[in-house]
């Protein structure tokens, strides 16, 4: 009876460790900067930023026309940008420049519709590499 109990405990622990280990293994290789920009482009086009929300750093610089301007935490950046895209409904977003050198950055044009009116904004995004991961250091929409 006792041995069966310990056997089950062992199986459960093994299973739990494997659940933890697999994602840990998977996460060891960070995506390239191009992939990060690709996920940003997709998210901005669809208005759903959850695909690249994890890339916001804890002190990201956010500058939005008619909106927030300054440094904010990753949580704040997520909700600020989400609210911004709700107000400025995306029509189209495309990067015009993607530079993946030592300090990757990209520029693009964001076309949106707000209050029955269409407009465009210039976008600038820069990344920095830290702790084996890419982070968005600056996100400007003007």
């Amino acid at each position, binding site marked *: 009876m006792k041995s069966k109990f310990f056997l089950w405990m062992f199986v459960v622990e093994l299973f739990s460790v494997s659940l933890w280990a697999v994602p840990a293994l998977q996460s060891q290789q960070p995506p390239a900067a191009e992939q990060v920009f690709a996920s940003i482009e997709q998210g901005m086009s669809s208005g759903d930023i959850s695909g690249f929300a994890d890339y916001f750093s*804890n*002190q990201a*610089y956010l*500058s939005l*026309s*008619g909106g*927030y*301007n*300054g*440094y*904010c*935490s*990753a*949580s*704040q950046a*997520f*909700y*600020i940008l*989400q*609210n911004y895209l709700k107000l400025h409904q995306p029509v189209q977003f495309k990067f015009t420049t993607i*530079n993946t050198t*030592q*300090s990757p*950055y990209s*520029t693009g044009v964001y076309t949106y519709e707000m*209050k*029955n*009116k269409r407009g*465009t904004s*210039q976008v*600038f995004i*820069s990344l920095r590499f830290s702790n084996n991961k890419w982070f968005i*250091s*600056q996100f*400007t929409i*003007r």
Partner: protein
Amino acid sequence: MINFRYLLRGTRRYTLAAVFIVFSIFLLGIISSRMIASKKEHSQTIMDARNNETAGEIKALFKEREQLLLQKHKRFTGAYTRAIQKRKTAGQKLWGTSEEKGICYEVLQKDSIVAWQIDAPLLKEADAAYTDGRFFFYRSPLRVYGLAATKKVFEKDTLLLVTGLLFEEKSIQENKELSSVSFQAFLEDKFTTEIIIDYTPYKQPTRDGRYFVTPLENESGNKVGQITSKRISINNDIEALAKTTANMQGILIVAGFILMGFAMSGDFKSFRYPVLKPFLYTIYFVVFRVLLFKLNFPSSLFTGELIEPAGFASQLGGGIVKSPVEFFITTSFFFICSVYAFFSFGKLIDGYKPHLFKRAGYIFYSAIPLYLLVVFASLRGIAASVKSVINDSTFRYFNEPVIIPSLPQLIMITGVLILVTAVLLLLAVIFRIHLRFAPSSQKGSILWFVFFEFIISLSLGAIFIKVQNEPLITYPVFAVFIFLLHVLFYVSVNRHLALLQMVLICGLFGSVIGVALLNYFNSGLERDSLKTTIAEINRPGMEFLQFLAVEALSRAENNAELADALNNKGKALDAETYLIWNASALKQERVQSSLWLLDRSKDVVGSFSTGDSAMQQVPKKFVALAGRNTIIEPTGINNNNGSINISGIAPVTDDGVLLGYLLVSIAYKQGMLIEQNVSDLFKSSPPLINNLLSPADLNIFSVKDGDAENISGDFYPTLLQVEALHAGTVKGQGEVWTEFIFNDENYVVYAQQTNDGKEGSLIAVALKEKKLEWSFFNFFKLFTVHAFIIFVIAGCSSLITIFRRRSLFITFRMQLLSGFLLVSIVPVIALAVFNRYATYEKSKISIRAALQANMAAVEKQTAQLPLHLLKEQSAKIVLEKSGIYCNVYEANKLTSSAMPYLYSTGILPAFLPYDADYNMNKSGLKEYFSSGEYGGKEYFSLYKKIKNNGRVYIVEANSLINPVPGQYSPVEVDVFLFGIYSLAVIIVIGFSSVIANRIASPVKQLTLATRSVAHGDLSVKLPNTAYGEMKELMNGFNTMTDELQRNQAELANLEREAAWKEFARQVAHEIKNPLTPMKLTMQQLVAAYKDKSPKFDMIFEKVSATVLHQIETLNAIASEFSHFARMPVMNIEKIDIIPIILESVTLFQNEKIAIQFQENTLTSLILLGDASHFRRMFINFFRNSIQAGAAQITINVETAGGIKITITDDGHGITPGNEQKIFESNFTTKSAGMGLGLKLSKRFVESLGGTITLKQTEQAGASFVISLPFDQTIQN
């Protein structure tokens, strides 16, 4: 047949209402979909009607503004005319800015301005479309006004009195204090469609079918402008209807859920397992909170910073705290759950006695690790939450020099208070649960137990902090919190506090912990902001400058206003250029930038610059390159000072026709982080990095090739310090944190290697550590807010109590406390007010002296200038030579300024402020000192007349642009004084409370003891802990009660003896009466027998009759005496037994015993009995329990199976074998006492037809049950 009475009884009515609401939700959905279908079917008709309605509403909104303006104009002209007629200085009313937002006034005489306000349009008479009071629009370069102007003749002068209402502020204002009026934006928000307003009567209406035009006409029917609106599509309407329906359904769902809660409340209360009740309530509130979150309620009712994630946003719970309002609501729900948990678990604990008493000690000790884990985890949870409040928020609670926080900040601060209070309440109840299992020998010594827990917590807490990867707080901070926590535990257990008192005390402790944590994490964030400062310095690279240039030049495309401006060259194109800069990203960035507008011939027709003189030079190379394409190129990279320059040019076209060019130059160097930027004037706060630090606090330097170069501040590192930084960055993979001492001050330093590829080059920021007094008043700034909230709650509670009692009962303690506070706080406040005034006045004098010194330098430099330079270049020359910003006026017109772009663009009026003009030009003063306010910031200006070449000029220097070092602003003075005097007030309140308590406590004890004596309890004793006369009074009282007890016993004995004697005499006397005739008749019978009397039979009959009669008499006498020996007559009446029990409980409130009612005990119960007998009986029971060593008495009153009053204590119980004897007369186990209490109680209860039984007894207490008959008919 539906029985509505049944359905509406009790909680069923809530269920009925909830069902009705659910039905309404479905009905709403059906109605809404039908309406949407109908709209789609008749979309054209509906849209035409809607557009007509919109046009009507727009006209009405315009008319509203027109009427407001005309009303103000009528009042102004009337007042001005009256003032002139009375020969008073009418224009004085126009000094400064208008008190009415958006309204301004000016007075013209031909083309001269006679009187004006700073924000007046400053038009010329020729610009006025009408001069008979009719409404018209006036467009200045940056603003659009609605104006009304009336010509008035006063004796020989004809004046034009003008009133203006601001319709459009074209530039975007970041500073919330500055006007940001836009009628166009207002209409776009209201009608959710594109709106274009032409403030001219000459614009032709568009023929584009997607738009409709609404002409704007003044009261006289003249067209003054037109509004072109995009036709609203049916989809907008349908969306609006769907949104309204969703909102209404949301409100109904919330209402239904609340009603369901009421409906279930009865079931919750009578739930079989009381220990699970708090969990049921928690589940309900959690579901409720999630429901509110999903429905976006009530966030959808708020606007602005309250719901902005910029204020606060955490991703906890999928966004359930993603704004200040959501945070407040979530913490409030948590607080409600914790209060209920405290209340219900507290009652359970009090009524629960662990039956497994022998094992209770094992449970107690073995639960210590689990208990500590819960405490540590809770403290970590509080720390993590407060850290999130600081890090995930842009509110800077300690850096904004305002005493009264804004509403969003107040909500966040209150949320922190609620959160920490809730956690402390839960920890307090967990502590009490744990304490309940303490072995009995320790139970009486709560202080010892608390101390034991405190030591264990400190010891194991060190390990807890050590094992964490990222401990949120340091061990000393942790130790302080553990100490405060255990003080709270001791107070909560030792003082038997009511629920509200407990909440308020937890609130005070929670405030101390919460504010201390806020301050702690803010200091941490300030430290981290050094890293952000480096990031900010390195952020603008060449690629970003290129982006800024692209963004600015993109505004040349499809810009109708710009095209219009270039077509009409007469316009002030400096303003148009400024507007392009204002709308671009250049304004937000700390870069120097210049923009130029060129016409087709490449001549400069407009410019705006925030740069130095070098930046203001037009890059001629780009002018030459100008063509049909946009060109952007770097113009310079200087690695020595880290500066980078870029320029660009783009064509401005209209329908393919080239109209001109837009040219931009941008420069950035590292020192710009600290330089004052023009845009800073228009921002809501001084330039702050991450809004945490002022640039004045930062000391930035770079290191290249071993040499340190100062960029900003006063910090100059030594060679050793530079070497330490190098070594640190190498070891720390490119960055290092360290501490240096400079000029005997401690500095925190952060350094990072630069990305220029050069070895050993790094950039560093040093921040002086704050002195203790700054942490001190930071703490009080928020603590006072919390204390105020707690005070308001306590005050409201007192008011409710007074309202319920319908009488104002101010205790002796409260009178004493009020007296102390009045005597001490009033002088403190008076002193604070005086100090504030004195400091403010001194500050003004000092600012004036500094400005006078500036003025002296200006005078010296302008004295020898030739006239043409003086008029146009003087301010620039002064700036270059001495760094002082000044303005030069001739009469009241600006001729030269160190910041010419502020005036040429129209941002500030190019006229002397009217009050300065009046005092200097009209009143003839040589020097004039005035104060003003701009963007929420107070500043001071000094004006002085200077003579040059026989002409008089007025020079102005102000503290807005020339910062005067070392001065406290009035608000900073307020904060500093506030901190000091807050401490003084808190100390006064603390000492006053303690002293009032010490004085009032013995008086209260005496009052209660006297009341007990009045109710017959002579065994009450006062403690011997007072001093002085109070001690004598208390000793005297104790002696008095002892004497009374003794006398009462003696009197009782004497009375008993006297009663017995009297009784015996009466008995003897009464018995003698029938015995005498019995003796006589027997003697007669004996004599007759001896005499053998012939009448013996007759005598025998007579004697036996007499004897029998006398025996009957004796029998009657015995019965009478038996009746007489019964209990005295009672006063039987209908009484409510509950208040009688409560009155008896009150008499023991100062004794070391907690007497509580059990949950579910009745709150009212009518029965027949004698109130004073009942009172004596309960007092006797409680006194017995106290004498048995009980610390807790629980009372339960119920009516199931008759009235049962159960009194249970936790004393040492009844000795086995004495269970029946206790009800006998003269049986007592006490050293004093007559042993009659229980006997008399039993007799009394039995006389009412009830019984008293000893339900159970053991070493842990005794339980008596008083059973009485229950009569339902007398309950109402």
